């Protein structure tokens, strides 16, 4: 049984704009899954199905093997936390801590637990010193972090992040990478995120879905996807710089083993040029 599974999921927006077409998506336990695709590929539309905000036109969405229904929607939303692409749409309380407290409060937790979770969530996104601020005095990146904290505080099993790195500064992106990895490693959470920043993917994902025009055109491990350069360019994406460089070196006859993350590439180059193991 998979945590999230979609079967031939099709969604048509009002005005017969096809958002998704026959999407088969699987999220197993404790996985880090990247959904990549150009603008308008249907990433946000897919994510909105994971917690029942959109209902399939045809096909089905199964959460822990069960379709989403009126009876289990609360459980589903407790289980799958979705952080929207636009943080402004998600923050509606007068202050940062009140907004983060919204989810846990509505789960019926007592005040002490709520306070604890709010502190913990704000600390995790590095916003603990801005708990009393009003949202309209925050920058875009800070709002994004508050939005993430608001979902984290509900302690979902599956965390879905729609374009989490868009609008973050380099340090913010680095923090987020560490944060996603620690959620997966420490808490065994399943993290699903979308992005079109391909250079980031190898650092935070085990498995990739490639979307284009509402369909999934490919899926596989980092190796499998990033070795298909033509596929990626045909859907308006790109191969990350490191594998691109290594491939080109290999074509010039230099024996470097393939690598995707910075650390892997570093040791591959050291091995190739200095002969170190």
């Amino acid at each position, binding site marked *: 049984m998979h945590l999230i599974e979609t079967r031939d999921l099709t969604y048509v927006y009002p005005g017969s704009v096809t958002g998704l077409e026959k999407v088969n998506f699987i999220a197993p336990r404790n996985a880090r899954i990247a959904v990549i695709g150009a603008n308008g590929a249907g990433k946000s539309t897919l994510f909105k199905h994971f917690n029942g*905000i959109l209902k399939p036109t045809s096909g089905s969405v199964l959460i822990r093997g069960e379709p989403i229904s009126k009876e289990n929607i609360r459980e589903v939303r407790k289980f799958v936390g979705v952080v*929207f692409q636009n943080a402004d749409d998600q923050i509606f309380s007068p202050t940062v801590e009140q907004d983060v*407290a919204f*989810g846990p409060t*509505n789960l019926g937790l007592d005040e002490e637990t709520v306070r604890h979770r709010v502190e913990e969530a704000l600390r995790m996104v590095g916003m603990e010193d801005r708990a009393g601020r009003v949202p*309209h*005095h925050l920058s875009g990146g800070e709002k994004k972090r508050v939005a993430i904290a608001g979902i984290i505080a509900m302690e979902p099993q599956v965390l879905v992040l729609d374009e989490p790195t868009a609008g973050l500064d380099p340090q913010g992106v680095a923090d987020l990478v560490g944060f996603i990895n620690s959620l997966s490693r420490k808490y065994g959470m399943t993290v699903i995120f979308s992005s079109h920043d391909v250079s980031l993917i190898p650092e935070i994902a085990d498995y990739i879905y490639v979307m284009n025009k509402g369909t999934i055109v490919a899926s596989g491990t980092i190796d499998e996807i990033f070795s298909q350069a033509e596929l990626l360019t045909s859907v308006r994406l790109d191969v990350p710089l490191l594998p691109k460089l290594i491939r080109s070196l290999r074509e010039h006859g230099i024996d470097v083993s393939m690598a995707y993350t910075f650390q892997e590439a570093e040791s591959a180059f050291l091995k190739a040029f200095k002969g170190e193991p």
Partner: protein
Amino acid sequence: MENILDDYAHRNALRDVDTRLKLALGVGAILIGIFSTTPLSPLIIGLSMGVITVAIARIPFRLYIGLLAIPVSFAAMSGIVILFMTGGGDPLWTVTIFGFSFIMTTESLNLAVLVTCRTFGGMSSLFFISLTTPAVELFSVMRDLRLPKEFVDLSMLIYRYIFVLIGEAIAMHNAQVMRNGYSGFRRSIYAFSMLGAMLFIKAWEKGEALLVAMDARCYDGKLEVMEGERHLDPKGVVSVGCYLCFCSAITILCAGKNFF
């Protein structure tokens, strides 16, 4: 983004003083001013509140004067009307305009002074509250006062969305100005009506997005008012108590006493 009163309230020097204390001071002063029959105590309240707001809460003096000028000038105008429209007492001065004679008497003068002073005292107390207490602090007090939950929740959402809407309006206005939207009268009318129409649609969309956002986080009819550690500072309580007693004493001792 423009600074509005609430932004000053977030930065004033009395930000960390207990909200209940600040409210007690402001509301108490307003009530004393309203019930006072002598212009003396509202006048004292008005001046002392001004001093507290500017000197202790460190609100910029120019801003404060500018703010106060609005209600006080209204009060002064209505004072002039009262001066010539009410009667009683000894006539002091008569003016004749277009054959109508307007008479100023001692009683009308006293009434005009009283009304103006009350307005002055009340407004500076109100500005004290609004410049030292951010609206977000009021919600927990509202809940303490056992106001209906629906009312408090609604105020919280309205508060947040006032700023969302202001933000949208400013962003849209900037976008229009950047592309010459307001160069000329006809264009201004066109751009402004478009702004209004789009703002309505945006507000509607935001409302729907709000519903989705609340649902996505299991909305169950609860909005949390996170309360920080609150403790009433005894020194503060004593000084607010003394101040209110002093003003009440003047009101009672000088009841009915007028300047003229």
